[in-house]
C-alpha cells in the first residue's frame, strides 16, 4: 500500500504571535515551529495502516528549510521517505497553490491513500486535503475520527462527528482522508527512530521542476489585513471576608446585568 501524508510546520501554538507592522503577515523570526497537531494524527494513522497492509509511507511538505525538522520527526516515528518542496521561490501562497504543488508531487510518486490533517492551526482554511483530492479526481472524506479499511478491499468506511451525531461515510480507494482530533492517539518516537532521523538527509524538490504552469503559482486569494483579537477586559478582585465578598460579587454581577 502506497501511503502519502502531507504535513505542515506551524508556529508553536503556545507562543503569542506578533503581526508585522508593515504587512499583513506574522513575525516568523526566532519563533518556535512545530508539526501541525492534526498532521500528527494523519501520520499515526499512516503508521497503523502500514502495520496492517505493509507498503511504504512518504511524507511531504511544502515549506522552508526549517520545515525539515517536521519531516525528521516523521522519520523518527517511522516514515519511509520524506520530501520537502522548497517554498523559497513561491512568494505568496494560498491553499490552492499549495494543493497544486502537493498534488503534482503525489501524482509523480503514486498513491493508494493520502492522509492530511483536517486543517493547519496557523491559518485554518481547512482546504488543502479537499483540493488535492479534486485535483487528483479522487474522493475526499474530511475530518474523520475513525478509518476502517477491511483487508484487501478497495473501499474505506469513515466516521465523522457531525452536529449532534455521528456520520458514517464510505468511499472507494484511492482517496484522501483528513484527520480530526480523536482519530487515534499518536505514538512517541523510539530512541532509535530519533537517531535514524538525525542521520537521514531530506529529499528536496524545487517547484520549477514540477512541470507546472507559472499560473499555478499565483494565489487566488490575498490576505489584506491581520489584527489581534479584542483585548480582554480587566478583571475585578473582590477583597474582604467571605460573607462580604459573596454579597459584593452578587451586587457586581447584578450591576453588570449578568444575573
Amino acid at each position: 500500500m502506497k501511503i502519502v501524508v502531507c504535513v505542515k510546520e506551524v508556529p508553536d501554538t503556545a507562543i503569542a504571535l506578533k503581526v508585522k507592522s508593515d504587512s499583513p503577515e506574522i513575525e516568523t523570526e526566532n519563533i518556535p515551529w512545530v508539526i501541525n497537531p492534526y498532521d500528527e494524527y494523519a501520520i499515526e494513522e499512516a503508521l497503523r495502516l502500514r502495520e496492517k497492509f505493509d507498503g511504504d509511507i512518504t511524507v511531504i511538505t511544502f515549506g522552508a528549510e526549517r520545515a525539515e525538522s517536521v519531516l525528521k520527526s516523521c522519520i523518527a516515528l517511522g516514515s519511509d521517505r520524506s520530501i520537502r518542496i522548497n517554498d523559497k521561490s513561491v512568494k505568496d501562497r494560498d491553499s490552492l497553490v499549495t494543493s497544486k504543488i502537493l498534488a503534482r508531487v503525489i501524482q509523480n510518486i503514486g498513491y493508494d491513500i493520502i492522509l492530511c490533517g483536517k486543517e493547519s492551526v496557523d491559518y485554518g482554511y481547512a482546504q488543502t486535503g479537499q483540493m488535492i483530492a479534486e485535483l487528483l479526481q479522487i474522493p475526499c472524506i474530511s475530518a474523520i475520527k475513525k478509518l476502517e479499511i477491511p483487508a484487501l478491499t478497495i473501499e474505506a468506511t469513515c466516521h465523522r462527528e457531525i452536529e449532534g451525531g455521528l456520520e458514517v461515510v464510505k468511499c472507494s480507494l484511492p482517496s484522501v482522508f483528513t484527520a480530526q482530533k480523536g482519530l487515534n492517539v499518536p505514538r512517541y518516537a523510539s530512541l532509535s527512530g530519533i537517531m535514524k532521523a538525525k542521520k537521514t538527509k531530506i529529499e528536496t524538490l524545487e517547484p520549477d521542476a514540477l512541470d507546472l504552469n507559472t499560473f499555478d503559482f499565483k494565489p487566488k486569494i490575498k490576505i489584506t489585513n491581520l489584527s489581534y483579537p479584542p483585548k480582554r477586559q480587566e478583571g475585578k478582585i473582590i477583597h474582604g471576608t467571605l460573607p462580604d465578598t459573596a454579597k459584593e460579587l452578587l451586587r457586581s454581577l447584578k450591576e453588570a446585568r449578568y444575573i
Partner: protein
Amino acid sequence: MEKFDCVIIGAGPAGVAAALTLVRKGLTVAVFERGEYPGSKNLFGGVLYSTVLNKLIPEFWKEASVERHITKRRYSILSKNSEMAVEFGFEDFNHPPFNNSFTVLRAKFDRWFAQKAEDAGAVIFTETVVDDFIYDKGKVSGIKARREGGDVYADVVVCAEGANSLLTEKAGLKKKPLPHQMITAVKEIISIPKDVIEDRFNLSDNEGMALEFFGGAVKGMIGSGFIYTNKDSLSVGVGCPISAMKENNMKPNDLLESFKSHPVVKKLLRGGKTEELSAKMIPELGYKTLPKLIADGLLIVGDAGGFVNPSLYREGTNMAMYSGVAAAETILEARQSGDFSEKGLQGYIKKLEESFVMEDLERYGDVPEKLSEMPQLFKEYPDAILKMVQGYFTISDLPKDELHRQAWNGFKDNISMWKLLLDMYKARKAVL
C-alpha cells in the same frame, strides 16, 4: 542498544558546556532534555556572567542571542512607599568583553548554545525524560529514557538535571533540600519598546542595567526583587527562600504583584505588557551541605550540584558552565586510564576546589543563613532610615534644626545605634 562515550542529562548551561567540551575532543555524546527544545524549560533571573562561555566560544556575543550588556547597576532599599538607592555606571564595561555580564532570554540563548554543541557533533534528544540510571555492579553505566528502546549506555554519565534534582536524590547523592535552602523565584517578561527602555533607564544602544530591590520590595523578607533590561522587554521578578514565604504565608505570585505595584517599581514598568510568567527554584545549599558530586560512573554538575552564589553577584549560570567544563575535562583524563570509578573521577572535585566555584561557595555559601539571623536588616532598618530621611527633607515652617532633631530622635527611639552598626558590619562581611 545505543552506546555513547558519555550521556548527559539536561541541556542547560552545565550540560551543554560539558557536551561541547567532549565532542570537540571527538567523544560521542548524547544529551537528554525533557523540554520541547533546549531552553524551553530553562529559567534564570536574567543576567549571565560569561567568563567560562567566552573561553568556550570566544566573542560569543557577536553571534549569540544576547539582549544587553550590563554597564549600570542600581541597588535600592524600599519601604512601603519610599526608596533609598545607589546607582553605579561604568563606561569601561561598554567595551568587549563587556565585563562578561549580559542579560539574556534563556529560551533563545540556551537554544543557540545547544545548537553549537549539536553542530559540533552532540546528539540531543529533546522531549525525552530520563527516569533513572542503569547500574552495572554498582557503577552507573547508562540511563533509562522514557521512550521505546530508551536504555542508553555510556562509559560515564553527567547529571545536569537542574535544581529539582530527582535523579541525584534517587541515586542517594543528595538529600531533599530544606525549605530555607531553596529560593523560589517568579519572574515576568514585560515588553516595552526598545527606545522607551533606553530613555527610561538612561541607556545607549545595547547597554543594559540591573536593578535590585530589597526590604519593602519583598515585604521585608530575606530576598529581593529585580528588574533587568532586555532589548525590548524587562525581566521583572522576586525571589525569597521557601521557608520565608511559608512563615509569612506569602504566595510567590502575590509577592510579585505587590512588588510590581510598589510606587517606585510601578513607574519603571508603566506601559509594559506582560508576555510570560515563569517560576524557578534556586538551590542555596551552602558549601557545607553540597551534595556528593561524584560516584562510580557519574558526575553531578550545575544547579543539581548546588553551584549558586547567592550574594549580590547572583551567579549561577557561569558556575554551572564551569562545572560542566570541569566534568568534561575530568572525563577526558579518566579516559586515559579507562577508570571511571569515583576514584578515577576525583579530578572533578580538585578542579572545582581550585577554582572560583568552591572558593566563592565557601565564601558566600552561608549568606542566606547569616542574613536570616538579622531580619531587622530588611524591615526595621530600612523603614526607620527612610522615615528619618523623609523627616529631614520634609519642608515645613519649623526651623531646619528642629526638623533635624525630630527626625533624628524619631530614629533613635526605634533603633539601637550600637546594634545597627554591628549588624551593618556583619551584613557587609557576609554579603560583599
